[in-house]
């Protein structure tokens, strides 16, 4: 698939198998963003009006890291659900559905160099 404008790399498919921790199913990463959030505070986005959902942290050795998810990735879809126009809470809910043990994400990421630059600047 061809890359979207503004992204150097083509969209990636990441399949995460959730890990059971007691009563919870965790993925091992954190998200930031949403249409109800202030996009100018997003350290990972190139465009500071981008209200999309971004990966802000990936736990070491967790399911997300094993599946190849990286910090700074922008999540476009989760199991076919659109994530580009959702609130922060809606995004969190779509990732943490108890009935789903596997989530397939469609993510886009900037080139490694740019990602490092961004996180150093913020």
């Amino acid at each position, binding site marked *: 698939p061809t890359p979207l404008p503004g992204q150097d790399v083509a969209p990636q498919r990441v399949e995460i198998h959730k890990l059971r921790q007691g009563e919870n199913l965790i993925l091992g990463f954190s998200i*930031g963003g949403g249409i109800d959030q*202030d*996009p100018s*505070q997003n350290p990972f986005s190139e465009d500071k009006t981008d209200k999309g959902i971004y990966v802000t942290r990936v736990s070491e050795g967790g399911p997300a890291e094993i599946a190849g998810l990286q910090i700074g990735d922008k999540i476009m879809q989760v199991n076919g659900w659109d994530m580009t126009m959702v609130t922060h809470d809606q995004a*969190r809910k*779509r990732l943490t559905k108890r009935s789903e043990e596997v989530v397939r994400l*469609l993510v886009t990421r900037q080139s490694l160099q740019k990602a490092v630059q961004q996180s150093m600047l913020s």
Partner: protein
Amino acid sequence: MQDRLHILEDLNMLYIRQMALSLEDTELQRKLDHEIRMREGACKLLAACSQREQALEATKSLLVCNSRILSYMGELQRRKEAQVLEKTGRRPSDSGPPAERSPCRGRVCISDLRIPLMWKDTEYFKNKGDLHRWAVFLLLQLGEHIQDTEMILVDRTLTDISFQSNVLFTEAGPDFELRLELYGACVEEEGALTGAPKRLATKLSSSLGRSSGRRARASLDSAGGSGSSPILLPTPAVGGPRYHLLAHTTLTLAAVQDGFRTHDLTLASHEENPAWLPLYGSVCCRLAAQPLCMTQPTASGTLRVQQAGEMQNWARVHGVLKGTNLFCYRRPEDANTGEEPLITIAINKETRVRAGELDQAQGRPFTLSISNQYGDDEVTHTLQTESREALQSWMEALWQLFFDMSQWKQCCDEIMKIETPTPRKPPQALAKQGSLYHEMAIEPLDDIAAVTDILTQREGSRLETPPPWLAMFTDQPALPNPCSAASVAPTPAWTQPLPWGRPRTFSLDAIPPVHSPRARSVAPLPPQRSPRTRGFCSKGQPRTWLQSPV
């Protein structure tokens, strides 16, 4: 004389009833009948009252009934005129050529009304003489609908008049005008001298203190005339308390905001008026509006939507256009069961809609594309309808939505929360309202503990957590950390710093203290680190960028 006036009034009522019947407007007729009956009841009650405070309530009911009757009469006459002109084939004089499109109706709710007072130092501190008390209430009018707040007793221990009422108007247009009027009456018998002959009255008034004497004279002078006002009819010649218009203002769409705002009041009475209150000159309130286009679906039907990024994959969905989104559900039932939609397409002021496809493929007619700009990216969703008629009706619904958004402006950014007003309890025995300041000593308070004690005693069990302002004096952060996990409860409503030393009125833009224990949406704290939003509890521009672990 009294009898003649009563007969005249009865004739008026008869005339009004006949008018309503002739118009065959059953709804307005019913409302008029109801008000006339209420008015009769209020008159009887007033005549039977022995206590001043009961009389105040009854007079207030009477005045509100009168004003509603007047307003419905006006509406009746307008409709009658329109009917007559229609029959003769002419257009009514006050409407131009028919507008192409009319904006949707909306619900307008005004709540948390608070009017600051400004007592003179001498009155407040010296505490001399008897305590003057006033009975006040607000009358609100939007279109032909009139509503009133509860009546509140005011004396000089109060720094603000705070109304608990939550007033809702349901048929407002974006061009609404909400007129707000404050009425006041003396609780003490101002009319004690109105019956007495003039000479005796002058003798008495000259022997009273200067200010009360002045008031007695003013009440004598105005006893003949009526305290006439735009909304209220003059009181019939029934002996009883007299309400005077103290201040008014008109609020429009520009004043609507999902938060508290302060507006100027036009003062309508002067010191000579017996019911004059030292008003600061502003009114603080929350005026919210919910246009129907935001809360009700405006269109729905079957669509085929092209998934973004997947060229040949068309999904059949059930589309629902509501508020600022086009929700595409997998099945029609999902819209009602709370299932997440497959795709949500934003529709706002910047969205562009085009009928027809950019690259018209064979056998793919009746499409419309919706484009939104996200920074440098433009995301376009292409939708296919089932027929030309379906396409036209979707386009029509979208144009109507864009029009409504242009008319209702900020009300269409996000849905403003409106609480259904709880039915008001019948007026209780009117107890004197105390104030926090009355209980505090005037000397500068350095003792936080003493202040907290007074607060705790006063607020009772409602102070489970330490008030947020405590954080200003200690090192522990009482305000929520925005980077913490997403489950943060809303903070209690008592959020302003306590005034020290000489008591002053609350800051005009601060949140009023909660008197009733019912839950309500909480306005944000001044330093804008607010907890995570839930549902539609909006607060203007988002100031946070929360992170949540999953």
